[in-house]
């Protein structure tokens, strides 16, 4: 009897210990696993998508906003009529039927995305068919109220390698981190019908929407610049062209336009080479527009005075090469102002010679050539300057009139800005204010990079440039009684070690009004066919834009 009792006692003890151990296993060892399994059954975890920041022009008008969009997905195993569904989707989405049918026929697939970023119209159109096995996930996409305006500046939003929205090129690329924001998460207990249980567990990490960018771009100025440039490119049969306008005293970019361009809303329909912004990527030889900088340098160094005379009597020989004037005309004894007015290459060789080799390179470097301007756009590039020990006599001579040196349009206009604003090299910038979702604002202030020229020097060169406009090749284009300082440029295109005599890049750089410049503008045209000269192609575009700007800003004649 005692033995049987002991057996029962031991059995109970064993069962008790087993239960305790099992409970220990469930409640301690497997606690996290079971808790997570239980939460999976009752808790729903949702991602709260952050809204991408918007982009506004200087007057607060939207340039890029968000609009509702949808991801269309299919669950092939739920489909009832594959043929009909394929035909309907192919018609609405403008995709070949065979391509969709192949995807829908693969019943091994549980969930397949068919099209992303569908707009409201297509969403409604597909929805009305009430197809089984078809579903939508709501997201958003970019909307550009001004269509393709300022496309190179804005960039676009595409998908990265992990399928997440990412900004590419321009501002979208440069400020991607700021614009993107941070997605939030919501964990909520739900009942069988999917309604939240208020007394249950709710965990929320709120989404932080992307920051809004407020630009220095004036949309009216941008509109004028783009229209006039487009007209000019068509009129002069050019391959392409660019216009960039800066505010001389701050370096703020007022407009930046280039053609050929693209529509950021449907960027994938355009060749990828159109995505790059020529103003900050394409290097060209500035030609005669560079003369104003060399002239400023020599006057700033006090190596010559404005009234010094040069005898322009014919071609000159430098390092075994013959240098001529652009039109083969020689004017005898001329002063520095006339050298600019006649755009004399031989005169500039004389001026460059007076400056000296070391100061010449020093000024080029200090004016920012060979380095990035650090404008707040993603893809900026810069040609390197030739190493100092590779500069020969002929290189100094040709560089004095803008050949043999490569610059981007933005580098060029920024350098000439020093003449317009009393000698300061400004950092060009496009975003003047960043505002976060809570309304906190970060102001971005103008930045002076260096002081290059004395105001006395820039005043003299500005007057020389005004003289070049009034008395030079562009005198018939200048609106009467307006004081505009400017300089034409025509550069041949170097191909395989020599210059192509038929292809040129023409340009005009100038600012107005001379005494208190409101804007500085550079117009470049690539390979115009109507005329190879800057005075007959780029200059008219410059003056057409300038005239509209005078009216727009209410600038009175001097």
């Amino acid at each position, binding site marked *: 009897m005692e033995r049987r009792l002991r057996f029962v006692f031991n059995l109970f003890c064993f069962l008790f210990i087993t239960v305790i151990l099992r409970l220990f296993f469930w409640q301690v060892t497997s606690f996290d696993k079971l808790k997570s399994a239980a939460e999976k059954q009752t808790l729903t975890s949702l991602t709260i998508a952050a809204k991408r920041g918007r982009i506004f022009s200087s007057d607060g008008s939207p340039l890029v906003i968000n609009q509702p969009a949808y991801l269309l997905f299919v669950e092939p195993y739920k489909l009832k009529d594959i043929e009909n569904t394929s035909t309907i989707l192919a018609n609405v989405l403008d995709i070949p039927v065979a391509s969709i049918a192949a995807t829908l026929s693969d019943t091994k697939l549980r969930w397949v995305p068919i099209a992303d970023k569908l707009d409201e119209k297509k969403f409604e159109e597909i929805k009305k068919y009430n197809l089984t096995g078809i579903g939508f996930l709501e997201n958003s996409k970019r*909307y550009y*109220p001004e269509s393709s305006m300022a496309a190179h500046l804005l960039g676009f939003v595409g998908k990265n390698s992990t399928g997440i929205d990412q900004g590419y090129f321009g501002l979208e690329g440069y400020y991607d981190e700021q614009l993107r924001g941070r997605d939030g998460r919501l964990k909520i207990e739900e009942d069988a019908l999917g309604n939240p249980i208020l007394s249950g567990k709710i965990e929320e990490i709120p989404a932080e929407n992307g920051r809004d960018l407020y630009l220095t771009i004036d949309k009216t100025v941008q509109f004028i610049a783009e229209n006039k440039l487009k007209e000019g490119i068509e009129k002069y049969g050019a391959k392409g062209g660019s216009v960039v306008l800066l505010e001389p005293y701050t370096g703020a970019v007022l407009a930046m336009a280039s053609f050929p361009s693209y529509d950021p809303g449907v960027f994938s329909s355009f060749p990828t080479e159109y995505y790059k912004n020529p103003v900050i990527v394409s290097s060209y030889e500035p030609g005669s527009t560079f003369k104003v900088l060399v002239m400023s340098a020599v006057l700033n160094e006090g190596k010559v005075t404005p009234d010094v005379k040069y005898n322009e009597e014919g071609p000159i020989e430098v390092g075994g090469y013959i240098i001529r004037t652009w039109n083969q005309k020689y004017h005898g004894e001329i002063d520095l102002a006339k050298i600019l007015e006649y755009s004399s290459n031989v005169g500039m060789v004389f001026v460059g010679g007076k400056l000296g080799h070391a100061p010449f390179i020093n000024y080029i470097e200090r004016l920012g050539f060979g380095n990035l301007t650090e404008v707040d756009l993603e893809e900026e590039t810069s040609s390197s300057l030739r190493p100092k020990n590779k500069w020969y006599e002929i290189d100094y001579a040709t560089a004095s009139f803008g050949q043999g040196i490569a610059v981007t349009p933005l580098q060029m206009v920024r350098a000439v800005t020093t003449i317009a604003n009393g000698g300061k090299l400004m950092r060009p910038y496009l975003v003047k204010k960043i505002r976060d979702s809570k309304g906190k604002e970060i102001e971005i202030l103008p930045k002076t990079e260096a002081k290059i020229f004395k105001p006395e020097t820039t005043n003299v060169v500005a007057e020389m440039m005004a003289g070049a406009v009034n008395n030079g090749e562009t005198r018939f284009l200048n609106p009467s009684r*307006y004081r505009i300082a400017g300089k034409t440029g025509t550069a041949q295109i170097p191909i395989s070690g020599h210059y192509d005599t038929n292809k040129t890049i023409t340009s005009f750089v100038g600012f107005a009004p001379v005494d208190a410049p409101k804007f500085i503008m550079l117009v470049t045209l690539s390979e115009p066919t109507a005329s190879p000269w800057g005075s007959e192609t780029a200059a008219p575009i410059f003056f057409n834009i300038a005239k509209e700007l005078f*009216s727009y800003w209410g600038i009175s004649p001097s």
Partner: protein
Amino acid sequence: MSKINLFFITFIIVLSIFQVIIFNSNSTAGANLSKLLNEIEAIEKNNDIINREIARASSIATISEKASASGLITNQHIVSLTVPLPLALSGRSSL
């Protein structure tokens, strides 16, 4: 049983009843909350669509197009109300 114990027992019972009542009322509030959240989402979506339409209607491209269609043209001449200085006083030879 002391009065204090009686008080605590009654208090616990009352709280338990309240809990049941509140939980009961909350059990249907989830559906209401869900409905409200859906409404907010729909309003936000409509707001985005309206913002888009306003932006499109007020864009400079649209305004310019409508102005051209209405027959408005850009003034090609600059009209100034200021009187130019006589040449002798302007001090500039370029005028």
